[in-house]
């Protein structure tokens, strides 16, 4: 018997707890904090108290000793009611804390991880620059120059999630430290010369914090080098492989949210003497959403399983991310159609998801980048 699709009882129990938290605490507040483009710090703190930001980390740093699948289950359940908080969790864990956990020295872990893992503080990961995000090696202009025991950093970063919230403590950035030598460096946000721009006016993810970062002669100790000097490129490739699985879970949450909302509305709303869900044109749309959700869910869980079993998972993570994000965009469009005019308001979850879906095809590697990864892995 090599095949098992079930969750452990504890994973299922935790999934239900997160689902309940999402329904009771996040869902009723989501229309407002999105409309106000407000980062809901009180809710993020409560997510921290439940241990959501610590799921895959060791209890030695205050973590939950959980696994990557359990993290994905939590991201899916949060993402089912609100994508902004889903990405806040995904980026907080996957981009903020995970690189320090995976590549950091014991001293760095002791210093930064406990607060991040408890969700009391948030970390960011700054890779993308104004010159471009897909071709990181070719577009990075940020430089760090060694001066005694310090790095002196100059440059800028663009679109960095969780970088400017009142909880943010550190941003890990990539910079060239020599010719073709990319190094990741941990920068505390209170370092002089470091500044964040005003929040972007985004199409979606309104309540998620996204910032431009400027580094003007920012001086941090060489001890803040994440792992080895020159390992930055390899590290971020690994970080993004994991992140893609988590983004797939976020996308599946969006599709599931569309299904839940459409089933409810399809039974409630009437036209021509019957519930609209009894018009086949509407029922079939919703059936297709279910197909997408189940297929994408199995794919991200499979990628997760490969990662947790120690198998290669680069290709599977790319497939999961590509498929789930493209299905999410379709799901949001179709669910909005099911809701008619109400779907075009941000009072409805499907209306908000219509705004939120598109970024899933862009962040942590665009669809084109995923197809490139898959085709290269096939030997093309």
């Amino acid at each position: 018997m090599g095949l098992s699709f079930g969750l452990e009882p504890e994973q299922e129990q935790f999934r239900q707890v997160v689902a309940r938290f999402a329904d009771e605490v996040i869902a009723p507040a989501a229309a407002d904090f999105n409309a106000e483009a407000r980062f809901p710090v009180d809710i993020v703190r409560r997510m921290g108290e439940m241990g959501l930001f610590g799921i895959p980390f060791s209890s030695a740093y205050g973590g939950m000793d959980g696994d990557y699948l359990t993290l994905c289950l939590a991201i899916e359940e949060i993402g089912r009611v609100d994508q902004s908080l889903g990405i806040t969790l995904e980026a907080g864990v996957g981009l903020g804390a995970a690189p320090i956990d995976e590549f950091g020295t014991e001293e760095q872990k002791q210093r930064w991880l406990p607060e991040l893992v408890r969700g009391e503080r948030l970390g960011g990961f700054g890779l993308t620059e104004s010159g471009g995000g897909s071709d990181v090696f070719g577009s990075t202009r940020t430089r760090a120059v060694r001066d005694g025991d310090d790095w002196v950093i100059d440059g800028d970063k663009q679109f960095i999630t969780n970088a400017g919230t009142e909880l943010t403590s550190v941003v890990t950035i990539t910079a060239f430290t020599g010719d073709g030598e990319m190094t990741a460096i941990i920068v505390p946000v209170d370092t002089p010369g470091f500044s964040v721009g005003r929040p972007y006016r985004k199409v979606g993810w309104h309540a998620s914090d996204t910032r431009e970062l400027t580094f003007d002669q920012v001086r941090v100790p060489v001890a803040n080098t994440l792992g080895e000097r020159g390992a930055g490129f390899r590290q971020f490739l690994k970080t993004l492989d994991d992140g893609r699985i988590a983004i797939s879970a976020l996308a599946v949450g969006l599709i599931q949210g569309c299904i839940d909302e459409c089933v409810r509305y399809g039974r409630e709303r009437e036209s021509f003497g019957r519930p609209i869900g009894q018009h086949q044109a509407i029922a079939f749309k919703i059936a297709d959403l279910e197909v997408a959700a189940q297929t994408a869910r199995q794919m991200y869980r499979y990628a997760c399983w490969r990662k947790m079993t120690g198998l290669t998972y680069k290709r599977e993570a790319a497939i999961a991310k590509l498929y789930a994000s493209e299905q999410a965009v379709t799901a949001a469009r179709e669910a909005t159609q099911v809701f008619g005019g109400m779907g075009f308001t941000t009072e409805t979850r499907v209306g908000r998801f219509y705004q939120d879906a598109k970024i899933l095809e862009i962040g942590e590697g665009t669809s084109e980048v995923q197809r490139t990864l898959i085709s290269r892995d096939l030997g093309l």
Partner: protein
Amino acid sequence: MKVLVPVKRVPDTAGEKKIDPNDNTVDRESVESVLCPVNEFAIEEAVRLKESHDAEVTVLLVGPESAQPIVRKALSYGLDAGLQVTDDAIAGSDALGTARVIAKALEEQEFDLVLFGNQSTDARTCLVPAAVAELLGLPSLTYARHLEIDGGSVTVHREHEEGWDVVTSQLPAVVSVVEAINEPRYPSFKGIMAAKSKPLDVRSLADLGVEPEQVGANGATATMYEFKDRPPKEAGTIVEDDGTGAAAAQLADWMTEKKFV
């Protein structure tokens, strides 16, 4: 201090419940079973006593073996140990029968405080906490919307229609809490994982020295003879505001008639 929290497995409050016509009890198959939501307030209060008074908290459940996940669920909030009383003879117990089993189980335990939810969402009798206190000869403080421990005494705000009374008693005591007392937290993943390995003691009626005739359907003092479906909701009265102020008078009359004012 030592605290005991009796909890109950109930049919999902939000689910559509059915009565099994064969034995006139709730058809457990028809709806998912959950930890009684009112218990979550007692559990939260117990967790706060852990934080403030280093309390050691045991959760007690009277129910069939299949209810064990509910004990683990209660433990996942961070409680220390479980005690389950399981016996076929308990099936069909009424409030008094249940209280007898709980009281006997408590007699074997050392405790300063027993924290009940004031009612369960399936039966809603509110009888069990007071009956347990009576059987044990302990002070009974019901409907607590606020609770404070001070040395060897407990003070509660006992809720009633006109406000609340401040009631103090020596410990040990039996307290039942209402939902206004706190806002329960959600269990953490760590709590759920830890609950798996918390000690859980399972006892039978014989272990506790309870005579089977005193409990279960045979020992019940209340018998259900007949049941009917809930009548469909009737349409309410609509009061139209015609701008003359007559609607206000009509509303006031209606509220007086219903004894809301």
